[in-house]
């Protein structure tokens, strides 16, 4: 019998119905993957299961009995724990304090030692080296993810709802995550796993539910649905080749760097980006990919020589980079890319305001630019005056892309082009990047998604510990080769630089 299930659940927000008669059952000892494009209703389902929202119609059944959760904590008290994509951790408190937040051990005086010991035991179970005394604010994002999982374990979860847990993890950490999921499954926990990564769904899930536009369009058992089948079910049409065909880069270099260093982060990097090329940069999180990009465009101070079209340029800040024809699209869309509490127009033109008037900003010209960007980049906004924060992740990314392209750069560095966005938008962005290269622009793509780097790039550079450790091209661009280089495992394939 299933632990927790939704029976014929519908949900409306005002006049808009976001879920239509959804049936979903979580069985003990089973990983149930929930997939769908952004806006398909995954988060609404998670919120209903986790007690954060009530269904408009239908019922939630827990252990065979209909229930109505009063709140998230109420659901948690019954063993249903949600790990949100945005972490619920207090960054100034220690790991142990966070794990026991709200249910601290001890009475008036806290039992610090006991909480620390239990936290240490949990972390050990998770195979991490995180100290229970570390402050959350000092941990890396993947480590915070592990703390979230430890926190869920400490609550004796019977049902664990995970929202894109692997999105922020590196290759190795994803391995640990999968082990933990296997272990929890063996212990009889029911797991609902939301993900955009179809390869991991195929690997992990015992049962798959595909959502489209608030409806369940497909339910399948392990092995009954291929990755291709999942993608087709999600999008509702056949996907031809997911990645656009590769291009034909010119021999001359658009951008070349030699001996580039960002103190403490990047050491002695020399690279060449050819005209019309899409150059991938792979590497583990923390290998200095982002720092290299930020050093190139003047967001971090760097030393070494940078040449654009053969001419040496000095880039001390982002303005210099713009003048040299470089632009950078950040990996951190929400904290460095867009002003979430401002409108689309303000966001679009923020980096290029001087194009819209010397003294007075010409708002009509801005509106025109927005109209054009909305069309060129297929930004789907209900209302051009809406706030950027209210757009879906995919549309935010398109807006950010439009903003990055507004200075009309020749060389574009795109850091994590498709993090946390749905399959349909991913394809649009891939096609767009390819189009840029076909126009004779040059693109550097930094990505943690191995298939993305391989599928998109003409050539891939691999970084490890702040250095370029290898380059792969053509048939040598395989996941295996790149991972070996990124992890520092020597092998005969892939030429070491």
């Amino acid at each position: 019998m299933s632990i927790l299930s939704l029976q014929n659940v519908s949900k409306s927000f005002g006049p808009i119905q976001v879920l239509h008669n959804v049936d979903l059952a979580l069985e003990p000892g089973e990983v149930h993957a929930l997939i769908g494009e952004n806006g398909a209703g995954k988060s609404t389902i998670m919120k209903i299961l986790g007690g954060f929202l009530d269904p408009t119609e239908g019922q939630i059944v827990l252990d065979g009995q209909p229930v109505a959760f009063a709140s998230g904590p109420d659901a948690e008290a019954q063993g249903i724990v949600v790990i949100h994509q945005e972490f619920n951790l207090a960054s100034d408190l220690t790991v142990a304090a966070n794990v026991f937040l709200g249910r601290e051990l001890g009475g008036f005086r806290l039992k610090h030692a006991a909480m620390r010991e239990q936290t240490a035991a949990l972390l050990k179970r998770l195979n991490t080296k995180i100290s229970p005394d570390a402050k959350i604010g000092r941990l890396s994002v993947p480590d915070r993810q592990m703390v979230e999982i430890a926190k869920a374990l400490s609550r004796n979860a019977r049902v664990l709802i995970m929202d894109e847990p692997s999105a922020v993890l590196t290759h190795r950490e994803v391995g640990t995550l999968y082990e933990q999921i296997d272990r929890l499954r063996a212990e009889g926990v029911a797991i609902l796993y939301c993900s955009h990564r179809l390869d991991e769904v195929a690997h992990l899930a015992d049962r798959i539910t595909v959502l489209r536009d608030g409806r369940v369009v497909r339910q399948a058992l392990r092995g009954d649905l291929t990755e291709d089948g999942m993608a087709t079910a999600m999008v509702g049409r056949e996907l031809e080749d997911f990645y656009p065909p590769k291009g034909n880069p010119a021999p001359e270099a658009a951008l070349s760097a030699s001996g580039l260093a960002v103190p403490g982060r990047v050491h002695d990097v020399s690279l060449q980006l050819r005209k019309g090329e899409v150059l991938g940069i792979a590497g583990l999180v923390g290998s200095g990919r982002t720092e290299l990009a930020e050093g190139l465009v003047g967001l971090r101070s760097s030393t070494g020589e940078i040449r654009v079209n053969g001419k040496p340029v000095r880039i001390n800040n982002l303005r210099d980079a713009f003048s040299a024809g470089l632009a950078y699209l950040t990996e951190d869309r929400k904290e460095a890319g867009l002003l979430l509490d401002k409108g689309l127009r303000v966001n679009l033109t923020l980096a290029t305001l001087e194009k819209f008037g010397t003294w007075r900003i010409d708002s009509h010209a801005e509106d025109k630019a927005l109209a054009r960007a909305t069309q060129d980049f297929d930004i789907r906004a209900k209302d051009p005056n809406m706030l950027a924060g209210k757009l879906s992740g995919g549309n935010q990314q398109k807006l950010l892309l439009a903003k990055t392209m507004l200075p009309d750069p020749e060389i574009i560095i795109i850091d994590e082009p498709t993090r946390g966005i749905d399959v349909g938008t991913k394809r649009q962005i891939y096609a767009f990047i390819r189009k840029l290269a076909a126009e004779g622009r040059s693109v550097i793509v930094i990505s943690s998604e191995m298939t993305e780097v391989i599928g998109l790039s003409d050539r891939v550079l691999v970084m490890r510990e702040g250095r370029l450790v290898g380059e792969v091209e053509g048939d040598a661009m395989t996941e295996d080769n790149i991972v070996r280089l990124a992890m520092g495992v020597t092998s005969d394939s892939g030429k070491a630089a």
Partner: protein
Amino acid sequence: MKKFDFHILGPLVALIALVILGALLNSAFLAPANITNVLARSAFIGIIAVGMTFVITAGGLDLSVGSMAAFLAGITIIAMNAALPEIGENWGTILIGMGVAILGGIIAGLVNGLLITQARIEPFIVTLGTMGIFRSLVTWLADGGTLSLEYGLRTLYRPVYYGGIGWITWPIIVFAIIAVLGEWTMRHSRFGRHVEAIGSNDRVARYSAIDVNRVKLLTYLLLGLLVGLATVLYVPRLGSASGSTGVLWELEAIAAVIIGGTALKGGRGRVWGTVIGVLILSLIDNILNLADLVSPYLNGAIQGVIIVLAVVLQREKRTADER
């Protein structure tokens, strides 16, 4: 968008309500003499508050403006008295004084701004410090007493506060010009857009090729300049400065900014809202003085209630947004 937005129109409605209330309570309220008086007295805080709107919108704060005004008034008077024997009792001396006030204001703003942007100290801490320093300096310069402008100069300088075009005195005119320029700058200039962007998220601003430190520094410079300008208009009013000049002006200016709908955490600036905020605060004072309804001693309490109320109304709007 078109529906009645209490958040934006609230302060204006409150202002109109206050005017009606004032007119009902006392017929002298709408007399030109009273209006002139209220507006002229609002002008000092108002000019400063326009500058404060930019500082707060960029995510900063300046607690030192009241003390800064007192200090600037002090050095202005000293400079004019010192120049008197050399230059004589004429506008030359007064222009020197005005120059000292404006230049002093810019330098004071520069000090605050550099400490905040270059030494990376919290604005609250920096300006709490300079607030004490400026206040102490003026008290020291006055030797605990009062610095007074020479009688002849005072007579010559007086019209800058009391004179004007018809019953509209110079402080009102200057305040109006500053308000219009301020609103325009916030709304239509690149600087204003950058200020809002920095207050909204300074990392996004930095990644959008905005020189965040420069813009922040400019907001403090602008505020210093405007404090200097307010001082130029204030000195002829009494012709003196002491350790108790401009006490609590910083809080009145901040209160006006907040009542006007600018977010204290930055990111959204409304200069015209600030102007309304200043007028609301002075009208409350004026009405309490004219009417016998409530003791004028409760002025501070009523202003306090208004400030808290303004913030509560802002918050209600925000939660309504999230639905």
